[in-house]
């Protein structure tokens, strides 16, 4: 069982254009900033929005606009979990879960629904109205409601984003547990890298409607191909043209690296590899630039220093070093990066 989808949707300002192939038993996370088109994609897969392209689930064509095939949402067997539970406010937790079972004319809807609640440890909330459930409980019931109908495709739209940090762990545990025992195809949409890393086997990074990168979470963070991924991995991402041991960056700046190759490349520099000095240092490092401190973020006993200059970089130093160097916004500083600390890969 797999999901094969090619989805194109015109939106204000950009066109969503995504191709996905997800085998059953794998959780695919579509990761991207707000407004990248993630929810639009999910709604199209669910059959709720108009789209162009083709969606095939487990050999069944759900959508094929070139042949005018459109299976309506209610016949797709695609369970949908919203950001904020969207439990029916006029039904109890139990009846919310039984709703889908009744709609699909399954026998013993009430007792099946009760078993789902009991198994999740929520049996005592069966007769509660959604209003009186806590945020975490409501989202867990919403997840059970989607799973109870045994969909072939489970679509999760930022399932943890609307929750308080204090209950997020509780729901994430439930989600991990349920996802691992769910046999269908799982697609998760999120703007939160932690959520994606915790739940996904594979990532698709979406920006302005286009896929910028795919791979396992490790692959994606090791070799970011966009500013968004670089920021979430916490590394500096530069783009330029390589020629031998040098990478020509925008402007007149250039970067020394080992075996940079040729052609368009990305270069990644970890903030810990960026050293800061008050005066121009002597010695071997070949990457030396002058810059001005633009911002200082304290993170525990480490400090992330944003430096603007010909090559804008983030450096990570200790608090002691920050005081010694007198780093404050507007201060002049020298940046040094060893060529061996620059990781270069083709763009």
């Amino acid at each position, binding site marked *: 069982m797999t999901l094969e989808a090619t989805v194109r949707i015109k939106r204000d300002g950009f066109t969503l254009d995504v191709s996905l192939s997800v085998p059953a038993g794998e959780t695919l996370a579509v990761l991207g900033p707000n407004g990248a088109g993630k929810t639009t994609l999910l709604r199209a897969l*669910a*059959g*709720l929005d108009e789209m162009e392209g083709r969606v095939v689930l487990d050999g069944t064509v759900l959508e094929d606009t070139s042949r005018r095939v459109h299976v*309506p*949402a*209610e*016949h*797709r*067997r*695609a*369970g*949908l979990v*919203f950001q904020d539970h*969207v439990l*029916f*406010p*006029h039904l109890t937790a139990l009846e919310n879960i039984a*709703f*889908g079972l009744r*709609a*699909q004319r399954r026998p013993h809807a009430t007792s099946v629904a009760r078993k789902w609640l009991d198994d999740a440890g929520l049996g005592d909330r069966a007769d509660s109205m959604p209003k009186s459930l806590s945020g975490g409980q409501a989202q867990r019931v919403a997840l059970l*409601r*989607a799973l109870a*109908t045994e969909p072939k495709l489970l*679509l999760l739209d930022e399932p943890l984003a609307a929750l308080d940090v204090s209950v997020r762990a509780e729901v994430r545990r439930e989600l991990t547990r349920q996802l691992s025992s769910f046999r269908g195809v799982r697609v998760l949409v999120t703007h939160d890298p932690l959520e994606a890393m915790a739940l996904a086997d594979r990532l698709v990074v979406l920006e302005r409607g286009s896929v910028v990168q795919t791979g396992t979470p490790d692959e994606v963070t090791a070799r970011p191909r966009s500013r968004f991924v670089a920021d979430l991995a916490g590394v500096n991402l530069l783009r330029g043209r390589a020629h031998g041991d040098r990478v020509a960056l925008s402007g007149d700046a250039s970067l020394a690296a080992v075996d940079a190759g040729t052609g368009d490349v990305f270069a990644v520099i970890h903030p810990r590899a960026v050293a800061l000095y008050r005066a121009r240092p002597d010695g071997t490092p070949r990457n030396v630039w002058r810059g001005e401190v633009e911002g200082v973020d304290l993170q525990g006993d480490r400090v992330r220093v944003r430096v603007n200059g010909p090559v804008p970089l983030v450096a990570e130093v200790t608090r002691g070093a920050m005081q010694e160097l007198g780093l404050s916004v507007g201060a002049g500083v020298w940046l040094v990066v060893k060529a061996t600390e620059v990781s270069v890969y083709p763009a």
Partner: protein
Amino acid sequence: MKRARIPPAIAVLAGLGLLLFLLPLAGLIVRAPWGQALGQLTDPTTTTALGLSIFCSVTATAIALVLGIPLAMILARTRGTTRNVLRALTTLPMVLPPVVGGVALLLAFGRHGLVGSLPYRWFGLQIPFTTAAAVMAETFVAMPFLVIAVEAGLRSLDHRYEEAARSLGAGYWRVFTRVTLPLLRPAIFSGAVLCWARALGEFGATITFAGNFPGRTQTVPIAVYIGLESNNPDAAITLSLILLVVSVAILVGMRDRWLGAL
């Protein structure tokens, strides 16, 4: 911030406005023939008018529910010019003088009317001056209240509930009856009560289109008017009191809903 004091002139005018509401009520209550009220209540003219009024207003509300909810659904879906035209058409009876509504109904459904001539020619059926005409007149005048309330409810409805239901496998009618209607219940309820109250008090369109036939078209408001005209003020006042009590009951029972929704 301390607000500016209200000038005496404004307070006096406001007081006069309030008196205009209050004095007629006081008149009705003070001059009511309390001693004979029970006798009036069991008078056949009164009970017949009351029974007819309840039948007509409840039937009109039921028809308004059956026709008005679908109309509100169409209204809530449309945009732009279509919506403005539809909206103007459905709300016109709210601002149209009821007498004009009665004349218009007569010209459409009367014996020589636009549509009314057909059943007369075919079956000898005539609509005006029947109980059906009274129900139609009340529906014509009162249905807009329901349509407006339900449309407002639909527009503020979170459609993701319906989408969630669809993704769980529910088809159109199941979504409509198990999700949309229950979620709209407050709007439908307050719209229906407003609609019923308006139908109960309907006078102008009814007397024009349905006339004044005791037991057939003489509803309470018409009986009140006829009672005063024919020197039987006690019956008129008693019936007026009944309508007043009903109105106050609705106002008290619905005040949270109305203040919230309208």
